[in-house]
């Protein structure tokens, strides 16, 4: 379910699953001492003959004698205990930081963790039985399976340690951060052993990071965002062939905003939540600059998890447009938007836009109505169907199911566009007196202010770069303004546009185009409305926005 509640439920389930899986059977007596001995031997090999494949091969043979990696249980036990031992050793290495404040965390030494990471790399790359360097690629499926098992064990070990220590403020995320970062860096460099399966290596890390999402382990959140956005991970995920990694990155970004959502909506950000949000903005700016298509293709589902009060954040997603496109300057005098070639092209949307409609069993009756304009009862009853006591932490956020409103608007719009194409082959046809417009107008006139606000927001969320959705929904918004049955509704349409324009940049191209048309085109006689002069500061805001628009 694309709603925040849905995502939160998923996160809670994931947390519970992970914690249940972290419960491991009792280890045999002496297991920890044995693993400690093996680790000490490895550290000697690593320090005294680094790079010696002979020494490595001998050590891997020794591990195989202990059932690693052949025997799943021995491997899980070895990795789990070795991780605990190395993390403990790293945390004990903490030294005070010169001149730091009392509660500083001190400086950790990572030589043990780094050596251990190299051992895990070696294990994953070369320890698959009967695979000599010459058959190296033959072992790839087993390697990936081993990599997944190692990463899963690391994750469970982290969660188990987390649960024991976070309440006493004792959980130190840094050794785990270092361990995952080492693995990320070493397993994502071009390499004949794993390179052929690089997307699957990335997927393995994406799965781990999804399992450790902030809603599951908030005490690991800052490391988590740094790993997700790391230059050896996020770009590789988004540059993987055929965009195989996009869905994984999308899921991780949704995980982040599902966690931040309650804090952003309440606009009461703790220092930590504010810093995490600031970090999220930096990551989004990198995505907007380097991978705008990723943000724009998933804009719909991102708008679902961003509180409607986060206007600049939402604008950031909606401002993304394909790098191949050159946007005409919205302030060009007499810009003929409807002559732009791009506006007849549909935008690429990778989110599933109908999932909320289907979850509420509204899609079929809606399609039926859009096709036949029957039964009229469907339309009359629609405002009530959009209500849904969407609560979180037992105070009601809104009485509307916002994802459902978003889904309805986009689906009706897409149907309208295809109907227009069927009739005349282009969008120039008047959009008035069409069934889709009936739906929009009926909702405009029968929803209360709050419901109408979410409806207008859902429409304004489609005002992006030049494409046929932007064009259609821009016409819809202006038509609803012109045909509004009361000045109050016109004021609300204006308010929805204005609140998106007065925030800091970026501003979506389609939003600017629509507002300029509204204030310039005499058909809307915008300046004659009382609300444009209702107070001096409002008048000033309008004039400043108008000036920047002109």
């Amino acid at each position, binding site marked *: 379910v694309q709603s925040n509640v849905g995502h939160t439920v998923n996160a809670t389930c994931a947390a519970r699953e992970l914690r249940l899986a972290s419960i491991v059977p009792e280890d045999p007596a002496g297991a920890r001492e044995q693993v400690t001995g093996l680790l000490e031997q490895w550290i000697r090999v690593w320090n005294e003959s*680094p*790079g010696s*494949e002979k020494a*490595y091969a001998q050590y891997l043979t020794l591990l195989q004698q202990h059932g690693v990696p052949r025997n799943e249980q021995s491997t899980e036990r070895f990795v789990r205990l070795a991780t605990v031992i190395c993390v403990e050793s790293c945390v004990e290495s903490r030294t005070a930081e010169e001149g730091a404040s009392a509660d500083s965390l001190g400086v950790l030494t990572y030589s043990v963790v780094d050596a251990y990471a*190299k051992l895990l790399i*070696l294990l994953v790359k070369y320890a698959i039985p009967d695979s000599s360097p010459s058959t190296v690629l033959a072992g790839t499926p087993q390697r990936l399976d081993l990599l997944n098992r190692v990463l899963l064990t690391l994750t469970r070990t982290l969660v188990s340690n987390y649960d024991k220590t976070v309440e006493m403020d004792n959980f130190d995320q840094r050794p785990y951060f270092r361990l995952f970062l080492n693995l990320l*860096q*070493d397993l994502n*460099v*071009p*390499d004949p052993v794993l390179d052929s399966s690089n997307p699957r290596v990335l997927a393995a890390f994406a799965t781990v990071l999804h399992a450790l999402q902030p809603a599951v382990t908030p005490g690991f959140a*800052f490391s988590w*965002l*740094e790993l997700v*956005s*790391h*230059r*050896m991970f*996020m*770009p590789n995920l988004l540059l993987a062939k055929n965009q195989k990694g996009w869905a994984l990155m999308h899921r991780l970004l949704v995980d982040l905003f599902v966690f931040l959502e309650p804090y952003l909506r309440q606009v009461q950000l703790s220092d930590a939540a504010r*810093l995490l949000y*600031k*970090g*999220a*903005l*930096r*990551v989004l*700016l*990198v995505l907007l*600059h*380097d991978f705008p298509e990723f943000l724009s293709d998933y804009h719909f589902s991102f708008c679902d998890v961003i509180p409607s009060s986060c*206007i*600049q*954040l939402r*604008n*950031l997603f909606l401002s993304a447009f394909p790098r191949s496109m050159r946007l005409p300057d919205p302030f060009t005098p007499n810009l003929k938007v409807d002559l732009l070639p791009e506006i007849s092209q549909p935008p690429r949307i990778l989110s599933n836009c109908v999932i909320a409609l289907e979850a509420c069993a509204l899609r079929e009756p809606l399609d039926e109505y859009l096709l036949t304009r029957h039964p009229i009862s469907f339309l009359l009853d629609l405002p009530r169907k959009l209500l849904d006591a969407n609560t979180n932490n037992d105070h009601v956020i809104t009485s509307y199911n916002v994802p459902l409103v978003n889904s309805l608007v986009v689906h009706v719009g897409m149907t309208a566009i295809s109907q227009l194409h069927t009739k005349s082959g282009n969008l120039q046809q008047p959009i008035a007196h069409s069934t889709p417009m009936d739906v929009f107008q009926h909702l405009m006139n029968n929803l209360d202010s709050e419901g109408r606000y979410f409806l207008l927001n859902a429409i304004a969320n489609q005002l992006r770069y030049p494409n046929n959705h932007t064009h259609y929904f821009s016409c819809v918004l202006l038509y609803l303004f012109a045909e509004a049955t009361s000045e109050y509704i016109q004021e609300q349409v204006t308010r929805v546009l204005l609140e998106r324009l*007065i*925030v*800091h*940049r*970026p501003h979506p191209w389609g939003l600017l185009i629509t507002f300029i048309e509204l204030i310039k085109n005499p058909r809307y006689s915008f300046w004659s409305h009382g609300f444009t002069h209702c107070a001096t500061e409002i008048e000033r805001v309008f004039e400043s926005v108008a000036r920047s628009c002109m």
Partner: protein
Amino acid sequence: LGSDLTTLGLNLNSSECLYSTFASPWAEAPITREPQFSLPLCYYM
């Protein structure tokens, strides 16, 4: 009103990709172009 995103330490007008010098979500400035390199294990003596 949001914040001025040009003050977050990223060169948004850069013609180059930002990700290769993206230090971290907490860094106020990009890293100096730390080279991405990897040394095969056999180079370690």
